[in-house]
C-alpha cells in the first residue's frame, strides 16, 4: 500500500504534487521553498507528470498565474516562503475572494528585516487573516499527507477556498526522514480530478469573474467567504476521515500527545513539536505529568474544541514562533480567545521562541515545563525562550 522513502519535507511535498499531477504548477524560487518547485520541475522535465509549468518573474506573478489557471478550470499550485509570500500579498488576499481552490505549500521562513533565511512563522501568521485555510505540519510525513488532504478540502463544493500547507524552513524542508509514500493509484483515486461547477474556459457558459463591487455588494461577497470558512471546519474532518481510511493516520484539528492526567501542557506548532515531545517523554519518565498539544488546523481555528480540551489542565504554556508586535502572539491570541467562555480557565503563559531560526532545545522545553508546573505564570506578558537578556 505504501513505500518508505528517504525524503526531505520539500521532496515529500513535491512527491505529493507528482502524484496529484496538477494541471498547472507555477514556479518561482525562494529559499527555503526552492527545492519544492525544483524537484517538481525535474518531474516535468522527465515527462512523468502532465503538468504545465509556468516559470515566472516574481511571486506576484506566480500566484497571479495560478489564479488565472484556477479560474480557467485547472487544478493549479504554486509554493512560497517569507519574502515571496509578502511579495504576492495582493493576490494572496484576492485568491479566497475569487473562491479559487489553489493549494500552496508555504515553507516557513522569517520575514525581513533583518534579512534571514531560517525558520519562524512570521510569514504565514501574517497571512492568517485574509481567508486562506492554514494547515501546519510537524514533519515531512505530515506535510506530504496534508497536501493530499488540502486538495480535497480546497475543492469541496461547500468550501472552494485556497489552502496553505505549512512546514518549517530547513528543519523540515531540508531535513531527510523516512516518509511513507502511498502508491500513485491510491492517491489519484483519493484526489480525483477537479470538477469545477463553472470555469472560464467553458465558453458555452460565460460568466464574469473579479468585477468591481463597492458599497453595494462587497460586504455580501465577504460574508459568503466567511460562510465557506466556517464550513471548511467540518469538511476538514470529513476529508481527514477519508484520508485516514487510506493512511491509517488521524487528521484532528490538533494533536494531543500524552495529555492524559497532565498537570501542565504546552501548545506549539510545526517541527518544534518533535523536540517538545522528546522533552515530554523524558519528564514523564521522571514521573512528571506533562503533555503537548499541537494545532494543525489554524484557519479556521477550532475554538470550541480547543477550549473543551484545555479546561482539563491546570496550566497551559503557549509557544509562539512569531511576534505580533504590540499584540499577543498569534497562537497565544487564539488560545486566550478560545478560553473566554470557559467557566474554569487554566492558568496560561505565552512564550516566544525560535525567531529567525534560533533552535529550541529539549532542555529549554523541560525548563519551560518546570516553570509551568510551578504555576509561576503571568498571562498578560510574553516570556522568551533562548533570548539573550
Amino acid at each position, binding site marked *: 500500500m505504501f513505500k518508505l522513502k528517504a525524503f526531505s519535507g520539500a521532496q515529500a511535498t513535491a512527491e505529493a504534487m507528482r502524484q496529484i499531477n496538477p494541471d498547472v504548477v507555477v514556479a518561482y524560487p525562494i529559499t527555503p521553498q526552492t527545492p519544492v518547485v525544483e524537484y517538481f520541475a525535474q518531474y516535468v522535465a522527465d515527462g512523468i507528470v502532465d503538468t504545465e509549468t509556468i516559470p515566472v518573474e516574481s511571486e506576484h506573478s506566480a500566484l497571479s498565474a495560478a489564479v488565472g489557471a484556477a479560474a480557467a478550470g485547472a487544478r493549479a499550485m504554486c509554493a512560497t516562503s517569507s519574502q515571496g509570500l509578502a511579495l504576492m500579498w495582493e493576490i494572496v488576499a484576492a485568491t479566497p*475572494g*475569487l*473562491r479559487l481552490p489553489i493549494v500552496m505549500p508555504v515553507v516557513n521562513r522569517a520575514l525581513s528585516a533583518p534579512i534571514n533565511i531560517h525558520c519562524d512563522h512570521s510569514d504565514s501568521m501574517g497571512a492568517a487573516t485574509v481567508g486562506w485555510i492554514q494547515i501546519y505540519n510537524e514533519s515531512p510525513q505530515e506535510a506530504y499527507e496534508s497536501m493530499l488532504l488540502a486538495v480535497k478540502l480546497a475543492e469541496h463544493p461547500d468550501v*472552494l477556498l485556497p489552502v496553505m500547507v505549512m512546514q518549517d524552513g530547513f528543519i523540515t524542508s531540508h531535513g531527510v526522514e523516512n516518509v511513507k509514500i502511498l502508491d500513485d493509484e491510491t492517491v489519484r483515486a483519493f484526489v480525483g480530478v477537479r470538477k469545477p461547477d*463553472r470555469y472560464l474556459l467553458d465558453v458555452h457558459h*460565460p*460568466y*464574469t*469573474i*473579479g*468585477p468591481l*463591487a463597492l458599497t*453595494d*455588494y462587497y*460586504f*455580501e*461577497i465577504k*460574508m*459568503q*467567504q466567511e*460562510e465557506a470558512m466556517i464550513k471548511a471546519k467540518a469538511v476538514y474532518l470529513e476529508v481527514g476521515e477519508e484520508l485516514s481510511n487510506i493512511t491509517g493516520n488521524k487528521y484532528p484539528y490538533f494533536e494531543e500527545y500524552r495529555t492524559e492526567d497532565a498537570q501542565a501542557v504546552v501548545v506549539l506548532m510545526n517541527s518544534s513539536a518533535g523536540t517538545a515531545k522528546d522533552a515530554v517523554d523524558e519528564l514523564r519518565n521522571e514521573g512528571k505529568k506533562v503533555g503537548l498539544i499541537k494545532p494543525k488546523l489554524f484557519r479556521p481555528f477550532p475554538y470550541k474544541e480547543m477550549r473543551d480540551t484545555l479546561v482539563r489542565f491546570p496550566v497551559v504554556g503557549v509557544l509562539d514562533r512569531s511576534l505580533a508586535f504590540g499584540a499577543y502572539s498569534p497562537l497565544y491570541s487564539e488560545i486566550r480567545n478560545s478560553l473566554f467562555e470557559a467557566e474554569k480557565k487554566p492558568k496560561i503563559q505565552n512564550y516566544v521562541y525560535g525567531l529567525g531560526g534560533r533552535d529550541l532545545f529539549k532542555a529549554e522545553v523541560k525548563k519551560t515545563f518546570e516553570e509551568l508546573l510551578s504555576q509561576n505564570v503571568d498571562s498578560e506578558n510574553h516570556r522568551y525562550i533562548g533570548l539573550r537578556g
Partner: protein
Amino acid sequence: MAEKKGWKDLMRGADLPPATSLENKTGSWRTLRPKYDPSNCTHCMICVSYCPDMAIPTTVTEEGVVGKDGRIYKGRVRLETNFDYCKGCGICANECPAKCIAMAREEEVVESSPK
C-alpha cells in the same frame, strides 16, 4: 440594476452573469465629447478598432454614404458614436488620419445642441 440580493442569493464569490457591462452605461463619466464630421470621414475603421469601449457602431451599406471630398463610401461604414458608452477618452480623435473627429468639452456641446 434590480433590487439588491442578500449574500445567500448571490452567485458565489464576486462572479456575475456575462455581459453585465451593457447595463452599466459609462457615458455619464464623459467630460470631453468626440464631435464627428462625416463630410471628412474616409470610413477607414481606424477609430472603430481603436475605441476601447466599442462605442463606435458600424453598418454595411449598398447605396453608400457621402464622406471626404464628396465621395460615396460603400460597404462597411461607421455611424455616430454611441454616447451611452463613450467615455470621451479621445483616442478616436487622436488616431483619425482624416482629422474628422474633434474633442470638445461636454457641457459646451450639450448646451449648444438642440436636445
